[in-house]
């Protein structure tokens, strides 16, 4: 049970933003800007960063929902998602994405873990300032989301089908603030 009185039966961050829409609107806006607005990284690649950080933080709600969104967005290349969840070293990644995911993993520990050689490795494989900036900010943002979702003990569904539905919604509609009236209809 969640630590505070959120709408019953609503999972994860959705229940929290319905509890406090005044902050929820900015959280959803930030997710939409970072994961869907213009960036040198594709939405699929950005969802992969979100998945990797959430996995390292053991935030099962965020990990499963963003993995589902990433699978939808990668289409027939979706096996990369489970590859990253299992082991970055052996996942079918471009050298650039691998270097960026290593940076994201260090941001998950602490910003100070990111070293000049990590940045140099990413640049060697074609990462420019914006790739590096967006990677760090997405990783930092999920360090926030993961803590928010688990820190208040929000509901984490266990049925994989629930996440498939979320992934479809996130990959098509993006991040849209749920309406309070959705409480009774959304599982």
């Amino acid at each position, binding site marked *: 049970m969640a*630590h*505070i*009185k959120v709408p019953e039966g609503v999972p994860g961050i959705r229940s*929290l933003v319905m*509890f*406090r829409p*005044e*902050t929820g609107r*900015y*959280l959803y*806006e*930030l997710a939409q*800007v*970072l994961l869907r*607005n213009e960036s040198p990284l594709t939405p699929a690649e950005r969802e992969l960063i979100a998945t990797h950080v959430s996995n390292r*933080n*053991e*935030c099962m709600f965020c990990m499963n929902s963003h993995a589902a969104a990433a699978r939808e967005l990668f289409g027939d290349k979706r096996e990369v998602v489970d590859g990253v969840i299992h082991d970055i070293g052996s996942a079918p990644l471009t050298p650039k994405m691998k270097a960026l995911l290593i*940076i994201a993993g*260090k*941001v998950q520990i*602490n*910003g*100070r873990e*990111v070293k*000049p050689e990590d*940045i140099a490795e990413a640049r060697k494989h074609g990462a420019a*300032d*914006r790739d*590096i*900036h*967006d990677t*760090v*900010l997405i*990783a*930092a*943002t999920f*360090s*926030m*989301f*993961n*803590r*928010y*979702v*688990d*820190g*208040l*003990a929000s509901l984490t569904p266990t049925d994989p089908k629930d996440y498939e539905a979320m992934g479809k919604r996130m990959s098509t509609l993006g991040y849209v603030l749920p309406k309070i009236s959705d409480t009774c209809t959304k599982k």
Partner: protein
Amino acid sequence: MPYIAVEAHLPGITGLLEYRKDSAEPIRDLTQFLLRGPNTLTEGERELIATIVSHNNECRFCSAAHTAATDLLFGESNTAACVKADIETAPVSEKMKALLTIAKQVQQSGKAVTTQAIERARNAGATDVEIHDTVLIAALFCLYNRYVDGLATVTPADSDFYKGLADRIVHHGYTRLPQGYDHLKK
């Protein structure tokens, strides 16, 4: 030197927020609402949460900036210094001790927050919204601290810099200055 090209006259977070403005806007608006919006926790108490998280993440820029803001709001520098040293003996209310303990747990991991810590806050009179906002402020500063240090932004050594910054975030707030930041160029 920062890992990406940010404006040299804007150390710490400001250069990053100016580097990418479309992502800066919701971050700024969220911070303005959480730390300056209507709330039963005072602005000083909310800055104290930002301070303890930044201190424990060893983010020197954010820790110095929010310590300075807390000091300005409290009108003394003892409270923030004591909270950073030891929450339990610091001169704050039992409710604030409980909320700061929750913030410290969030700094480690969302999963580190204990039912006992939540119960303690509730027994000391904390409301659901206060517990929610404490967790979200703590989580937000885990974002800021990683953004600032993950891109190796400049941390000024001069304490006057942080007094100036505190003056801005206390008297103007967290939204972008309407005139931008070019006037800070030396």
